[in-house]
């Protein structure tokens, strides 16, 4: 019985958002037709579908290119943020050095930085990854650092009473405790990675969905630009959900530590 109601709830969880989106698109289509809005202003979903479909092959390649940039930027954020957060929380002196630098990286407008990065790093994938990283990593560092210092003092005391070394305290107590914080940071980072990748593609790219939006609007292929936009939001949703699923599968205890047992 529990299984059935859970399945029902699950179906509702999936069905309700899908139905909402379907209604939204239907209303959009109807509005475009009813008010006869020209396609170069706001194209109807059907026009987007048809025009983007005609370019299915190139659009697919652009999508792959953007996905690669997003994932590499996201990976860089993860790999750099974790040790950075550990450094920030282990020593007040190091924190004093790093924090202003972090804030500095965030106060620089990334769109303005991107062309300069191209000059420095060359017109290749690297400046795009760096821009994506710069957009995405900051909330991740902050939330991992918050998790590392949120460990209850009793657990730290337990570690001390067991003669845990500083390294073991971080590895066995602080980091596991911070897992829910890490994941909330990762969820922010994956979404921002998509933003960062598109920003980078606006400035410097010969492929990618950001590049497609720039070129298709330049040639008045507005429905294709809208198609790229929709693919980007789908990409954001899918990547976000992958992070959610990874947390659910590998760190089930991090979701609700006070939930009564399943048994």
């Amino acid at each position, binding site marked *: 019985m529990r299984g059935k109601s859970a399945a029902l709830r699950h179906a509702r969880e999936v069905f309700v958002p899908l139905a909402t989106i379907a209604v939204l698109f239907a209303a959009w289509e109807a509005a475009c037709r009813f008010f006869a809005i020209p396609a170069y202003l706001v194209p109807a979903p059907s026009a987007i579908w048809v025009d983007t479909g005609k370019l299915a092959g190139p659009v697919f390649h652009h999508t792959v290119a953007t996905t690669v940039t997003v994932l590499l930027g996201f990976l860089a954020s993860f790999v750099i943020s974790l040790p950075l957060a550990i450094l920030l929380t282990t020593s007040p002196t190091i924190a004093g050095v790093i924090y202003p630098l972090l804030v500095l990286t965030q106060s620089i407008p990334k769109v303005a930085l991107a062309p300069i990065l191209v000059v420095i790093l060359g017109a290749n994938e690297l400046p795009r990854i760096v821009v994506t990283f710069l957009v995405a990593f900051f909330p991740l560092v902050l939330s991992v650092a918050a998790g590392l210092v949120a460990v209850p003092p009793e657990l730290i005391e337990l570690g*001390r009473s067991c003669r845990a070394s500083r390294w073991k305290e971080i590895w*066995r107590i602080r980091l596991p405790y911070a897992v829910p914080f890490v994941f909330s940071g990762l969820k922010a980072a994956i979404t921002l990675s998509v933003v960062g990748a598109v920003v980078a593609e606006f400035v410097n790219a010969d492929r990618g969905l950001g590049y497609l939006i720039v070129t298709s609007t330049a040639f008045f292929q507005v429905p294709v630009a809208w198609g790229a936009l929709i693919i980007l939001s789908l990409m954001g949703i899918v990547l976000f959900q992958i992070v959610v699923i990874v947390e659910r599968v590998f760190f089930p205890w991090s979701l609700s530590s006070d939930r009564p047992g399943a048994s």
Partner: protein
Amino acid sequence: MIAIEGVGKTFQSRDGDAVEALRGVSLQIRRNEFVCLVGPSGCGKSTLLRLVGGLTLPSSGRVSIDGTTVAEPRSDTGFVFQAATLLPWATILDNVLFPARMMGVLTGAHVERARELLTMVGLAGFEGKHPRELSGGMQQRAGICRALVNDPDILLMDEPFGALDALTREELTLELMRIAAERPKTILFVTHSIPEAVLLADRVVVMSPRPGRIAEIIDIDLPRPRDFDMEARHEFQDATRRIRDLIFGSRARRAA
């Protein structure tokens, strides 16, 4: 075995005031003795326990174990905290093995011993469960197993049953006495409960607050093994009354 000599402890509070938690505390604890520390809040009994455990250092005086000054947590000391403080992400078995793993001495013998201990406290079959799947009493049982996994000579217990309901508390009190009888250890036990202290202890150290100091040390002459029936004995009654008088003054007894 444990020597506490003229120990004082002063904390620096956040606004810069000095708070004297302990003053001039001296206490000798023999090997395999069960000593309970009772007293009102703020009498420094937990601080005294932490000093013996090496989690904090005295401002004056000296704490030593077998002649060695305690400067940091020792591997022959086991801790049981007020809350079970289990790691929510680790299984019960891994939680019990935690001290061995932290000290880098984990062997197959520890795993075997952890399983034995869990069986002894009635948690066989729960090795692979996570803490959230256990009741509060079961969690604290696991906490006790964790303190015992390195087979320490000294067990320091800071109100270990304080967060449990009355029935679980009695059950665990009996269990602790059984464990102490099976594998004799030097036990220092902090509690708010006077009957609990009298039932468990060879000696009850009554402390008074501001600054924390020892008011009196009371020998408990009840035979072992003990159980809750002994609460009816006059030795038990006399000891609890004496402790109550020391803590509340004789006025409180007349009012009761």
